[in-house]
């Protein structure tokens, strides 16, 4: 008995998944070819971790403390390795979308059988893996030379940390895509990009773990989604807590729903403003 193979119809779930998986696979292959480009990001993580190691070593010494904000110097530095890793390898799609909106090339993609925003998401995710590995090698190397291996690392919690990190990438993608789509309404979106980046630096926990912020700022930071992008995954890596994991994951899912809806609406309103002249 043999089954007759029927070609997958457009719109069927399996065909949809296959389509985006193919986009991701192609970009993953591309990123292998350009793995050396990630070395540039690797240099930055070395730079930042070196500076942070000097800063925090001096701070721990000045305070005559072994634990600050619940973390030892060893944990603090590895916290920054993971936070910088996310910051340096995340999907930077806002420039691409802005350019495609401004030069009109977005119009060519509207008639194609894929969702414009999802296309960028999966092509970005395809490129993230290799970049993360390269940057992590650089980051881990400098951290090892400065403070040695992470003493609190537990291999069994790594899948959960990676899951939280994946959601962090998705949340950041929503912000990045949203900023790029603002090009429908503003000539230049660089200012929004800069401000978003710097908010992540402070309220996201890139420069200072959220636990070290003053109470008033901390309470604001914890209700906003930025800490779920950098602080959440990094804190769980260095100081695993099951209850905190569940809380962060739940908040990430809620914020993802909110932000993804915002991006979809922005794209729908923006696409109405596209006018196509000639070919």
């Amino acid at each position, binding site marked *: 008995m043999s089954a007759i193979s029927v070609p997958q119809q457009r719109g069927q779930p399996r065909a949809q998944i296959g389509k985006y998986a193919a986009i991701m696979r192609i970009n993953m292959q591309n990123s292998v070819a350009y793995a050396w480009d990630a070395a*540039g990001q690797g240099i930055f993580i070395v730079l930042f971790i070196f500076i942070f190691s000097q800063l925090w070593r001096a701070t721990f010494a000045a305070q005559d403390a072994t634990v600050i904000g619940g973390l030892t110097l060893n944990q603090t530095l590895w916290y920054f390795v993971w936070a910088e890793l996310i910051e340096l390898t995340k999907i930077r799609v806002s420039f691409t979308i802005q350019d495609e909106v401004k030069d009109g090339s977005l119009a060519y993609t509207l008639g194609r059988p894929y969702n414009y925003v999802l296309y960028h998401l999966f092509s970005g995710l395809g490129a993230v893996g290799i970049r993360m590995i390269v940057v992590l090698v650089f980051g881990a190397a400098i951290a090892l030379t400065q403070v040695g291996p992470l003493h609190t690392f537990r291999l069994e919690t790594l899948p959960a940390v990676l899951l939280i990190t994946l959601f962090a990438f998705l949340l950041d993608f929503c912000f990045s895509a949203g900023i790029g789509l603002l090009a429908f309404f503003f000539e230049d979106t660089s200012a929004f990009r800069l*401000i978003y*980046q710097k908010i992540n630096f402070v309220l996201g926990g890139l420069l200072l773990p959220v636990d*070290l912020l003053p109470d008033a700022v901390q309470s604001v930071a914890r209700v906003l989604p930025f800490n779920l992008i950098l602080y959440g995954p990094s804190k769980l890596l260095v100081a695993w807590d099951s209850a905190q994991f569940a809380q962060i994951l739940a908040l990430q899912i809620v914020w993802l729903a909110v932000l993804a809806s915002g991006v979809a609406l922005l794209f729908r309103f923006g696409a109405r403003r596209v006018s196509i002249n000639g070919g």
Partner: protein
Amino acid sequence: MARVLNEIGFVLHMIKLNLAGIMEYRASFVMQAVGMFINNGIYFVFWLLFFDRFQEIRGYEIEQIYLLFAIITLGWGLAFTTAGNAPQVAGLIAQGRLDYYLTLPRPVILHLLFSRMDAFSMGDLTFGVVAYLLTGRYDPLSIALFLLCTVFAAVIFICFRATAGCLSFFVGNATQWAGHLSQMMVTFSLYPMGLFQGTMRLVLYTLIPAGFVGAVPVEIVETHNPALVGALAGAALVSAAVLVLVFRLGLRRYESGSAINVNI
């Protein structure tokens, strides 16, 4: 002397034209400048929060950070508001687009650097002034030294960025690496120099002169030390000499892209 004055006049004229150019897109200009101001402000907040918790680190307190930020942002703003093409040098060389400058009867490097203005840097300019107001140093000598230091810092910023861009003459497209080097310099300069010791400190006063755009000016404004003013002026001169030398050496290896460009 007449020639120097003539070239200064030329540079000022280009700055005037560039300003008129970016003012054509006024809304975009204001947005970029405000964006950069807020960008700096948020970074500044990090240090406020840090010192709120830890008070002092290797001789630096929040007052020194105000001054450090004031000098670096005003210096950076001055540098790239006026010489906005410095970050483009690597790309222009790699694409063989220096022909336009080579055919005109003006010093190539001056013409190249000052033929563009960066609207973002206006935000740095204004931020630098506001940050200085927070330092509370309103005596005329401190203000004069502050302004002088920012001019020297601007010269060093421009020369370092452009020299890094000149790597394109020797290694192909160095756009990314020139950007990385420049970013490295400004990142190191924004931290108290006391954090870095030994070889690293030597690098930060030579190969990547971050100490001369941050820590040295801070000490000058605080101590009014004339020897340090001389050292800073010397560093600015050396930066300019290195740029001219590297640019001249590189120009011998330059290959035209044969592209037809119209600079508007």
